Every structure is written in structure tokens, then in C-alpha cells.
């Protein structure tokens, strides 16, 4: 560092994120932090803890449970929130659950729409949240590169990419009418490497699925799917093999492919990331439904 007032990129990003989180707490009546249990969410929660230290978070976390998450995610979630004294809300689509909607029987498109998008929207409506934090980053996917940090949603929770509010300096327009809401992305400007770096420096606990271990997986359409419970069809389970694998992203287990890896520390994961180079979203099956599919989902209200 040449100047005593020069900041590292990570310190600068952290300061920006904390300011964004505080701004929401100050300006909105009923904010919530969407918590996906993944690594980006874990960074987000740590930033929120920092923003309000020595106090507690002035808003709850909301987990949208598709009922098909990895079991380790759920146990991690419950332990983490209990140990940190964080208020956790869990919401799922009761109707979809009763109908037995799931990726094996209904395919990724129907499952994602009913158990994720619709569940999210009904969860937000149920509590009447006027602002919802998400852990999306602009470097993840092309349509996200253009989204604002404070991203306006109409009464139907829809995003209009052609009519976004201009966002300048660090002045955020937080004004909405009743029923409308804002999605807020405090780590918009972080890259995947920044997230790993922060997890490492801050020693943030993570779901063990991120780290390589021998796990029972089946190969399906080129993806390695974990045998996480009995709901996986028997004919698939018969093909199960044990492999050293880890997950680059976490979501619904039938829709999240593992990668073969021996990386069992953050350092090794980064090393693999830098040398093997496979963009992280490729292991999420939903993005490949159609070109621009993420943008389509975002317009409809999915994160």
C-alpha cells in the first residue's frame, strides 16, 4: 500500500456493502434478508452482522425452502441461526408440496417455478416485506451485470430491465408505493474470488458440501447428482457410485451438479478455480433451459 489511506479492494467492497445494508435498515419499514444458506448468503449475513455490531440484525432472515434442498444445508441453517441468535423465517409453497411437486417427477422448470419462484413471491407477500436483500453478484451472469443495487419491483414483483431507476454515486432511491418493493444486492460488485477471499479472511463457516469428500452420486445428463434421500428414483439410485466431489453452488439437490475434486479447503478450491476454470453457474441446471433464461426468470420475480 503506497498511501496510509489506500484501501484494499476487499476493504472497499466491505465498506460499500455495509453502507448499503444500513441504508435499507434506515429507510424501509419492513426489510428481510433472503438466506439461501450458500456461500454468498453467508458473506451477506456476516456483512449485516458487521453493519449493526455490537447490536443484532434489525431484520429477520427468510429461507425459501423448496423442500428439495440438500439435508446438510438445512441442518447447517438451523445450527448457524441458533448459535448466532438470528431470527429465521422459513417459508415453502404448501400447495405445491401437497401436490408432490419435485424435480424428478415434474422437471426442473415446473419445480423451479412452483417451489422456488412462487414460494418466494408468496413468502414476501405473506409478511409484507418492502425490501429484500439478496446475495446476487453482477459477475455471475450476463443479465445481472445490468441490474441496479437497489432494484425496483412492481406489485407483481416483476423486474423491468428496460425501465430501471438510474443509480448514481452511492445515493439510493428507496421510495416506493404500497405493495411495491425493492430487491437489494449489497454484494453486487463482488466477484466469485472476492467472496472466497472474504470467507477465508473472515473465517466464515460454510456448509460442508462446498468441500470435497467422498459422496454417493449418480450421473444424469452429464451432471453428478448427489443421492441425498429416498426420493431419488430407484433406477437412478442403482447407478450410484462413490466419488470425491464438491459443490460449487448449492440449491435443490436434484438440480445441482457436483464437480469431481479433491479440494477440501478454501485455498484448494481457489486453486482449482484458477486453474481448471469453469464458471460457477454451469453446475446449476436451470440456467440451461433456454438462452436468456435467467433474465426471463428475473422478469417474473425470481432472484
Amino acid at each position: 500500500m503506497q498511501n496510509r489511506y489506500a484501501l484494499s479492494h476487499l476493504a472497499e467492497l466491505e465498506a460499500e456493502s455495509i453502507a448499503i445494508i444500513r441504508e435499507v435498515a434506515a429507510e424501509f419499514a419492513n426489510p428481510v434478508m433472503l438466506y439461501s444458506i450458500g456461500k454468498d448468503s453467508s458473506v451477506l449475513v456476516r456483512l449485516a452482522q458487521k453493519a449493526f455490531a455490537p447490536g443484532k440484525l434489525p431484520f429477520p432472515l427468510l429461507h425459501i425452502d423448496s423442500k428439495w434442498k440438500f439435508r446438510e444445508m438445512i441442518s447447517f441453517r438451523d445450527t448457524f441461526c441458533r448459535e448466532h441468535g438470528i431470527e429465521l423465517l422459513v417459508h415453502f409453497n404448501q400447495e405445491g408440496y401437497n401436490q408432490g411437486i419435485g424435480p424428478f417427477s415434474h422437471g426442473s422448470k415446473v419445480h423451479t417455478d412452483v417451489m422456488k419462484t412462487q414460494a418466494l413471491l408468496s413468502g414476501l407477500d405473506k409478511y409484507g416485506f418492502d425490501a429484500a436483500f439478496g446475495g446476487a453478484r453482477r459477475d455471475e451472469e450476463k443479465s445481472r451485470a445490468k441490474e441496479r443495487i437497489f432494484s425496483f419491483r412492481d406489485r407483481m414483483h416483476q423486474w423491468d430491465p428496460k425501465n430501471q431507476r438510474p443509480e448514481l454515486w452511492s445515493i439510493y432511491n428507496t421510495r416506493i408505493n404500497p405493495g411495491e418493493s425493492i430487491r437489494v444486492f449489497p454484494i453486487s460488485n463482488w466477484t466469485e474470488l472476492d467472496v472466497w477471499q472474504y470467507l477465508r479472511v473472515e473465517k466464515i463457516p460454510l456448509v460442508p458440501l462446498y468441500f470435497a469428500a467422498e459422496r454417493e452420486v449418480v450421473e444424469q445428463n452429464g451432471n453428478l447428482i448427489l443421492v441425498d434421500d429416498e426420493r431419488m428414483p430407484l433406477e437412478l439410485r442403482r447407478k450410484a457410485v462413490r466419488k470425491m466431489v464438491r459443490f460449487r453452488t448449492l440449491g435443490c439437490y436434484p438440480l445441482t451438479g457436483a464437480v469431481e475434486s479433491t479440494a477440501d479447503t478454501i485455498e484448494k478450491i481457489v486453486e482449482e478455480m484458477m486453474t481448471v476454470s469453469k464458471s460457477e453457474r454451469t453446475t446449476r441446471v436451470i440456467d440451461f433451459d433456454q438462452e436468456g433464461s435467467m433474465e426471463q426468470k428475473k422478469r417474473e420475480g425470481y432472484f
Partner: protein
Amino acid sequence: MDIDINEFLNRDEQKDLLRLLTAGSVDDGKSTLIGRLLYDSKLLYEDQLAALKRDSRRVGSVGGEIDYALLLDGLQAEREQGITIDVAYRYFATSKRKFIIADTPGHEQYTRNMVTGASTANLAIVLVDARNGVIDQTRRHTFIISLLGIKHVILAVNKMDLVDYRESIFNNICHEYRSFITRLKIPDLHFIPLSALKGDNVVEKSESMQWYTGQPLLEILENVYVTSDRNFIDFRYPVQYVLRPDADFRGFAGTIASGVVRPGDDILVLPSRKKSKVKNITTSDGNLKEAFPPLSVALTLEDEIDISRGDMLVHPDNMPRTARSFEAMLVWMDEKPMAKNTAFFLKHTTRTTRASIDQIRYRTDVNSLRKHEASSLALNEIGRVTITTSQPLFFDPYMKNHTTGSFIMIDPITNFTAAVGMIIDRPSINDQPNDEIFTDRATKKEHQEHAQDATLKNIVAQQLLAHEGLKLKPCRGEDGKLTIGVGRRLEERGISEDEALFLLNNDISASLADLKKLFAATDSDLFASLPETVQRVLIEMRFFLGSDAFRNHSRMIRAVQDKDFALATREMEQSSWFAKAGERGRKLLALMKENVRGER
């Protein structure tokens, strides 16, 4: 990988961040240039490339070759039209720095997007097509860049391959641009001839343009020094949120807008004017000895005084202006044109108040920079206006302080961000008399001065340049007076403190750049890896001695390169410079000695 992953991560963590803006038209090859930067900095992941190759065959506009532009055009609608229509943010890193690129479109109707991208940028790349040279759009972009106060500009003359890499073409374009840009305040300007498509002078120096002696684009981006662009002088702390976890703790959370604050500092609260002292600067990682922009912290005070969001903490001897009326350059961002007498919401730092636009002094045509009378502003139009707010604001001119000099105006019905503004360094003559209680004496005097027309100032500047001439070294005029610049009389007036600090800042930047260059001969990261105290000693010596005399200390320099600070200290002590340097020499020597084992 050549280095251990831990070492890689440790180095990566220390990199700083440069936010840059690219401006140019669809056809200037802007997206290609960004694609090239991302591609060549090897951060494009394999499968993004694979997807790219697949897309190129379907909608790509460059037959056969990789279309770098497709990396960037995110939204479906834009892809179909083959143009970028909004601001997109892109991320890449090199071994030295991390970068955020705001990619903004070049079309006239999208001025608002460029203003958006420019608001957070440290540096701007203005692209021109070598075949077309400086066009209206180049002028428009440059005007917006200067309006938003970006201090570093690179004019990138692209598509040099299509003009046979001819130096004369490049020189003509630079000349034309320079004559245009003298009217705008841009302190740091670079010119680069390049071909984004072929990769000339993007990352590597071009083989085809041996006549170009400057650095390639990426090298400039990696080395431009931006920390000093921040204001570390005027402490401004807009209170964002009050932390009250229990009866014992009361912290005022916020982001340092400018200046430096330390525990024990006297502070004054605006608007109440109550005084106290800073007790602690708290963060969840422990208390800090000092805080500076853009850190987000919380301050606790010695006294219990009532402070809430929207208040501002400052040092009592360095106050912002407090007023309900001011002038600003306003950019209209809404499809719906400005309607006078609308009671907008105005958000400035953490304060939101009602505001009205009282008067449009003029509208600036962004192509000609001419000023026109106007009764309203429409989308993408820029004008100078007078604004009155219902509550007083605590502000500084935008050019001195981007955070306390900027604001947004929100339509009260649609809640859309209708306009954004930059406060101008001159008090409005329309200030309300009841603001007087808030206004210190210096400001009141300024109030009484009659507002001068900006056009007049511009014309007079041209006139004076012609009459006085431009002198870059002190020289005696016909009347025997020693002058510099444009008629500045050195003996009578000298220079002001602000001007001196501006020069100092430039000189420090130059010294630093020279040292980095000198040490890069051994190892490109060497200078950055030196202890801060050693860097400080070297910069001051280089500052004091100049390039040649500094290089005469070759034995000391070599010892520093070998990181043998004991030897470097001895060499320093034996130099002829040290014998003459007196107290300053002893102080610098003591700093150097801090790095010698056993001396501390």
C-alpha cells in the same frame, strides 16, 4: 501455478480497486475492447468462452472470428438489436489491481446511462475510431466526464489497423482533442493508439506502432494513482443509522464522506450546532485509530447529545455550507420532462427533503457546449438550475467533494429518479434570509457578490490566454514582474494553499510513478512490496532530489532492491545529500532504520 496458492491469495487480498468507464459509440469497438481486456486478463472462464462461440454463430456480427462484444451484451432485447442500451458492470483483475468497468452506450438518447456510469468512475476511456477522429459524440462524452469530475482520462484511438497504423493520423486526432479539452477541467490525460480487435497496445505494446513510446492501455490502468483523488481534508460524516443495542452503547453509524477523523477530535453536529468529542471509532473488528473515506464505521461521542439520521458531524473549524438554496448542474433522467413547481423529493447524503427547481439559468448543448435559454429540461438534457429545499442541506461544491456535492431528485408521483445534480461552487443570490443563522461569515460575504455568468468567464479565459500567453516556467514580463501560468504574479500573489496542495499531489504522484518504474526494472512488484516507511523515505528523497540526483544514489537504491535495509541506511547516511539535509535527513534516516533488525 508458479506461486503457492496462499501467497497468491495474500497478494490478491491487498490489491486495490479501480473503477473505470468506457465511452464510445457502437461502432468504435468499445465492447470489443472490453472483451479483449477481460479475455486477455484471463479471467474469462472456459465455459463462458464455449457459450460465446456457440452464440457467435447465431447472432454474431463479425463473421467467423470471436465476437468479443457478445460477452457484454446481456439482455435479450439488446442482443437482437446488436447494441448495448444500459449500463453494464464488468469485473476483471490483473496481478496488480482489480477493475470494475462501467460499460455505457454511445447513443445520444442514452446520456443518462453514461452519467450513471461516470458517477462512480475514477477513470474514463474515451474511444474514437481512427478513421473518423474526434466527432460530436467524443465531445459529448468528454463533457459528461468532466461534468462528473472524473480526473483521469484516456483517449483511445481505436482501429489503428484500418489506417495502416499511421502516426500522423493519431497525432492529428490528439491535437484536435487537446484543443477541445482545454476548456474542460481534466487534470490527467493520456493518449493511446490501439487496435482492440488485433490487440495492439491493449495489453502488449504494438509491434506495428514502434513510433508510440507510451505505455499500453492495461499498464496505465494498472498504475494510475487514484487514492489521492479522494478528499482527505474536509471531515464530513453524514449520520446514516443510530445503533442503540442497549442503554450503554450509542453509536452513530455512517460512511466517512471525506476527511479523516480520530478519537479525541472536536466535532460539531449539524444542524443543531452542538459540540462534543469523538470517543471511539468502532467497528465489529475493533476500534480504529483513525477513519477516512470510504470506510463505514460507527462513532461514539463523549457527550450525550441528540443526533439522528440526516444530521452531519464535522470538525468545527472546517464547515460545509449550510443553505436551503443553491445552484447545480442538473441532468434530466426521466422520460417525463421537468415541470416547474413540482415538489420533488431531494436526497442528499442521508437527508431527504422536499425541493423545487426555481429557475433554469441555461441549458448546455452537449454537442457544441453552447448555452441556451430554457424553460424546461427533457430526458438527457443538462442545465444549470437554482434549487430551493424545505430543510437546509449541508454541502460542498461537487468539484471539491463528490459525496456532499451530489444529490438525486425523485418524482413525488412515480418515485422515479427524475434528475441528478452536482452542486456548483457559488452561493446562490436567492438564498433565503432565514438561512443566515446557519451561515458563517465567509459564506455570507460570498452571498453578496453578484453572480457572474459562466459564459463570460470562459470568453475571458480565452482572451487572457491570447493576451498574456501561457508560461510554464517563471519568467519576467515586459513590466519586469515574475509571472507563471497565465499572468499569475509570483512575487505579489504567489499561490494559494489549495493550489500548492494540488501541485504537491501531482509531484508526489510523479515521484511515485518514477520510483515504480525504476524498481520495476528488477521486479514489477518490488516497490509495492517494500515496507511503507521505506516507500515514504524514497518518495520524499525522489521528490526533493529530482530524477537524476536521486538516481546518483545508486548504492542505496541497489541495497533497497536487495531489501538490505541496514546497508541502505548506511549508504543513505554516507551520501553527500545527507550531509546537507539537516533535520529532514535525520528524520528520514530514522524512518529507514525502523526496518533494520535490532534498531527498533
